[in-house]
């Protein structure tokens, strides 16, 4: 195995020391070199730290670079650090998070309107998990929410633009027909019967 070039080494060091994603611009300033050189070195490091080669993986998350451990070692890491897995998202939390992620900033009553239920406990637990955060108050005093930097880290997203294209969730014409029929057709079916 050959060594990394010195700048790539330095970048690996810096990413190791930082617990937050670091932009290439910040790396260039810290290393006092041009951005292009950083980009080259990052490319070298990125190629070296692809999944399956080492214990670490270089990821682009939240607009910056960050080192993560390989998911292969998750179980061993949880045993070593006695850290249980966080519980999965509940259906209510997932729906609420989707509304905040796509509509942010969004006020709590709007979340309730879309879901048909108050959503208080889902909002509360997402807030507690640090996935969403308050971003002020509406004119009527309702809390307004947006996703947090932790959301991008936990979801491995390189910025909010990396969320799945919302048009993917556009209801199909079939969905629409089905709902329309269910709303209106029952009476007809039954009066025919």
């Amino acid at each position: 195995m050959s060594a990394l070039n010195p700048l790539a080494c330095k970048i690996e060091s810096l990413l190791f020391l930082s617990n937050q994603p670091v932009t290439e611009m910040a790396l260039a300033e810290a290393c006092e070199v041009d951005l292009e050189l950083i980009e080259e070195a990052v490319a070298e490091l990125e190629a070296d730290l692809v999944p399956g080669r080492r214990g670490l993986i270089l990821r682009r998350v939240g607009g910056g670079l960050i080192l993560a451990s390989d998911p292969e070692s998750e179980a061993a890491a949880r045993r070593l650090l006695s850290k249980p897995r966080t519980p999965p998202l509940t259906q209510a939390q997932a729906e609420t998070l989707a509304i905040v992620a796509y509509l942010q900033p969004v006020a709590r009553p709007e979340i309730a309107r879309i879901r048909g239920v108050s959503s208080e406990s889902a909002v509360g637990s997402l807030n507690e998990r640090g996935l969403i955060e308050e971003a002020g108050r509406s004119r009527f005093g309702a809390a307004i929410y947006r996703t947090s930097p932790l959301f991008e880290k936990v979801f491995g997203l390189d910025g909010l633009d990396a969320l799945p294209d919302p048009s993917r969730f556009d209801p199909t014409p079939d969905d629409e027909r089905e709902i329309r029929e269910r709303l209106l057709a029952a009476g007809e079916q039954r009066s025919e019967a």
Partner: protein
Amino acid sequence: MASRLDLDLDLDLDVFIGPFDLLLSIVLREEISLLEVELGEIVATYVTRLEERGEMELEVATEFLVLVAALLELKSRLMLPGAEEDLTDMEPAEAVEELVARMLEYRRYRDAGRELKDHFESQRGFLYRSAPLPAELRRVEVETAEKVYEADQLAAALGDLLEPPPRPDLSHLRATVSLRRRLSAVRSVLLDRPFFDFDDEFGKEDRMTQAVTIFALLDLYKKGEAVWEQDESCGPITVRRSQPGQAQLAKTA
């Protein structure tokens, strides 16, 4: 992924008895006014059904609830004074469109939520380091360090330490009185005189000493060395040598 809209619910209302979806199409064709429908009853029936099925998790929105919530909103708009003219003009078709739009909107976020949930699962294996910076990076560098503290503070701190601390205040601690000493005090008085007045002899002592002296008297009485009498409550106490105690007193003195 799309589950079918589930509107099965048997209702027993004042204006209508039958399945919910039938009621819905009747309302939407304006054969019954929405104003006459007790939506609260519908919700109560729905909740009872969830309870029966053991699915009491009201945070889990369903399309059913989204629909009822939308109907509630339509109804509340109908009930607003003055708003009626606008809304009575609302064609049944428009109400249907509004409901359909609400259902579709909810479905969009329901599906996006499912996707986020799966994505969350797929990302949970990546773990990140959370360690404090090494100590050498947390401290000021010698080359760039500037004066921020006054050396006088150190001299003052040392001066404070040179000062011996004040003697601790012991006033809250009670002095102890020895029973043995009170016994010998009483005995030595009784050696001088066959009897004495308690107040004359010990009235000037502090309360604790007087109390222990009384205790000493009880002890002497028990041993048969002395007797004492008090004619009235709180009156003077006279202490006397007891006759058989005399020899004993002489011995112990």
